[in-house]
């Protein structure tokens, strides 16, 4: 059971780190490129998991994927915020959120993990639930 706990938690740990780094990455290279970076990291993580030879490799793979989850879950919402017109702020992101990668990339892993670290602007609507 301990091993399973480690496998499970490694992605949350990765997304914690990813979400912490996301702000700095986004400030320097912009949202578009930070999301590109996140999807590349996600693909690398998937490849590491896919080629797992042992539990340690799986944990590392999920940690890497978790970094991508951390970046997307904080940057996708603020990207949608930035693209939407100001009168619809606070509304638009909510329904888009459920269709974008923020939610369904992790779903595809059979386990939705959210770092819990959100951008400032998104604090208005997460109460409506996932």
């Amino acid at each position: 059971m301990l091993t399973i706990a480690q496998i499970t938690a490694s992605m949350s740990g990765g997304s914690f780190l990813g979400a912490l780094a996301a702000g700095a990455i986004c400030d320097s290279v912009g949202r578009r490129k930070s999301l590109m970076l996140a999807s590349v990291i996600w693909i690398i993580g998937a490849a590491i998991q896919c080629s797992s030879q042992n539990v340690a490799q799986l944990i590392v793979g999920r940690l890497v994927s978790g970094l991508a989850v951390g970046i997307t879950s904080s940057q996708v919402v603020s990207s949608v915020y930035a693209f939407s017109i100001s009168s619809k702020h606070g509304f638009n992101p909510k329904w888009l959120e459920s269709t974008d990668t923020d939610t369904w990339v992790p779903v595809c892993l059979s386990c939705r993990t959210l770092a819990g670290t959100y951008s400032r602007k998104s604090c208005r609507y997460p109460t409506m639930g996932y």
Partner: protein
Amino acid sequence: MFLIAYGCAKGVEGPSAFRIAWGIQGIPGFILLGSLFFFPESPRWLGSKGRWQEVENTLALLHAKGNLDDPAVQAELLEIREAVTAAQNVEGVTFFGLFGKKMWRRTMCGTTVQMWQQLLGGNVAMYYIVYVFQMAGLGDQTLTSSIIQ
């Protein structure tokens, strides 16, 4: 995805069962990466870097099908200019400002909402539901949990 996982668990023998399931998760990554090439850059970020011509073009593309003179575009542009100027005028804002005298309540609201959402146990149930069903003695745990998910 849960049903893909179920199919892999039942229909595929050996290690390729989990390799397929974990490999498939890379596909959305490729879709996102490919579609991002057609995405504009965030106008607010461009504004913060002083690239105003690109801000205007992006806003026109997003809100007025490329019409630079649209009132909505001009209004957005003005608002972004104000926001960027305000952000540049405020100095000495650090990470620890989040826990400052007046800010800590907002920080607490934002973070605890996420915390309580996790503590409701949805994710925990998702991760461990197979074991829960196993303990409860349900027949086909993989199928039951896949359907419930």
